[in-house]
């Protein structure tokens, strides 16, 4: 997961994400609407927060156990990967 975050850090600075959660990927031309949690996470990813830093930031805002946050974050990464927004990783490398 940490590796995936490193990859994501390199490839997300081009994304256009509004405070309201409207996401435009200028490479593919696709647009998405994210909910407030997705917007929160992606904003931090664009700002190059690490996985642990995002979890720490979420704990301050959301009243949710850490293991649930970790699971949700991983699911969100899968979603981003499926949509081609972050580069899919070799499962053998990142253990997903």
């Amino acid at each position, binding site marked *: 997961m940490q590796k995936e975050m490193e990859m994501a850090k390199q490839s997300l600075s081009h994304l256009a994400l509004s405070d309201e959660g409207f996401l435009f990927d200028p490479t593919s*031309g696709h647009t998405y609407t994210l909910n407030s949690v997705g917007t929160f996470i992606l904003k931090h990813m664009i700002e190059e927060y690490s996985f642990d830093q995002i979890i720490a930031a979420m704990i301050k805002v959301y009243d949710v156990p850490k293991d649930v946050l970790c699971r949700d974050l991983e699911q969100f990464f899968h979603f981003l990967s499926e949509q081609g927004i972050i580069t899919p990783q070799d499962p053998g490398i990142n253990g997903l």
Partner: protein
Amino acid sequence: MNNKTLNIAVSGLNATDNPGPGVAVIRSIRESPEFDGIITGLAFDPLDPGIYMRGICDNVFLMPYPSQGADHILERIKEIHSKIQLDVIIPTLDSELDAYLRIKGELEKLGIKSFLPFAEGLKVRSKVYFERLREIGITVPRGESITSITSIYELDQKFRFPVMIKGQFYEAYIAHSPMEAENYFRKISAKWGLPVVVQEFVFGQEYDVMALGDGQGGLIGSVPMKKIQLTEKGKAWGGITINDKTMNRCVRDIIAKLKWRGPCELEIIKSRDTGDYYLIEINPRFPAWCYLSVGAGQNLPWAAVKLAMNMPVSELAPCSIGTMFLRNSVDHIYPISKYQAIMTSGELTGNNE
């Protein structure tokens, strides 16, 4: 630009749900702060909406259809030129280009300039020769021209279904089986003649790029776009500019290898399986959505006018990303006198007065 006001003739004034590029080209030219002159519309049909739209054409003349031959087109242009001197002609339809290439020399003698693709460029972009682009290192789907139904039942030895079945000039269908391919072969060959082109189907995301080449391998500008709204025929009704660096390199490479001259629209698919970029079609003229180039900061139609006028044009700054266009349908009201004029005399002058 210069002290002389220009008279620029533009064809393709059809502006229905499958519009010609003429109106968009004219709007682009008029938006240039450097433009000082008038626009002469060349229409094929008295009901082409671009004839009547306010602020588009100053004068309009009916033209013979390209199928009537280059000589007829030349005679008509001479007639128009004797009434209102033309400086530049921008033909915007594929079907006109052969004729204009034939009469290019005559037009130049009359002082009418243009910036047309090279004949060789037109040849290699045709669907029949398209596969040969692989020989110069351009990635295109595998293809084959076929002239008989027998060949269809041998396709599964060379291609994996589905395949694209394309007319040599127009129309394309996806065939999922030899039976379906036979059906499309019959339909297309009856309409567009032989050969019919079979092309490997590439699964992936399609993009369109409008580009302007200087004819020496240089790229004056390019505007890549993803369609975000389609008509029933699959034509763009809305789109947004994008910035895919790999695709941009691919476009620059294509224009350089072909030494493309003039405007074109490249249809490109990014393969879902390999991530490779396949050129699937080159349309040798501005697309109907070319007004997007103005919105995105690259007025390519105006750049084409300047190239036609032998003015130096440098490569334009990259277009702005995330610029969107949406078409609409609105009814306009016109006096019958304009329709009468174009019907009876084949011309409408002082249209914007």
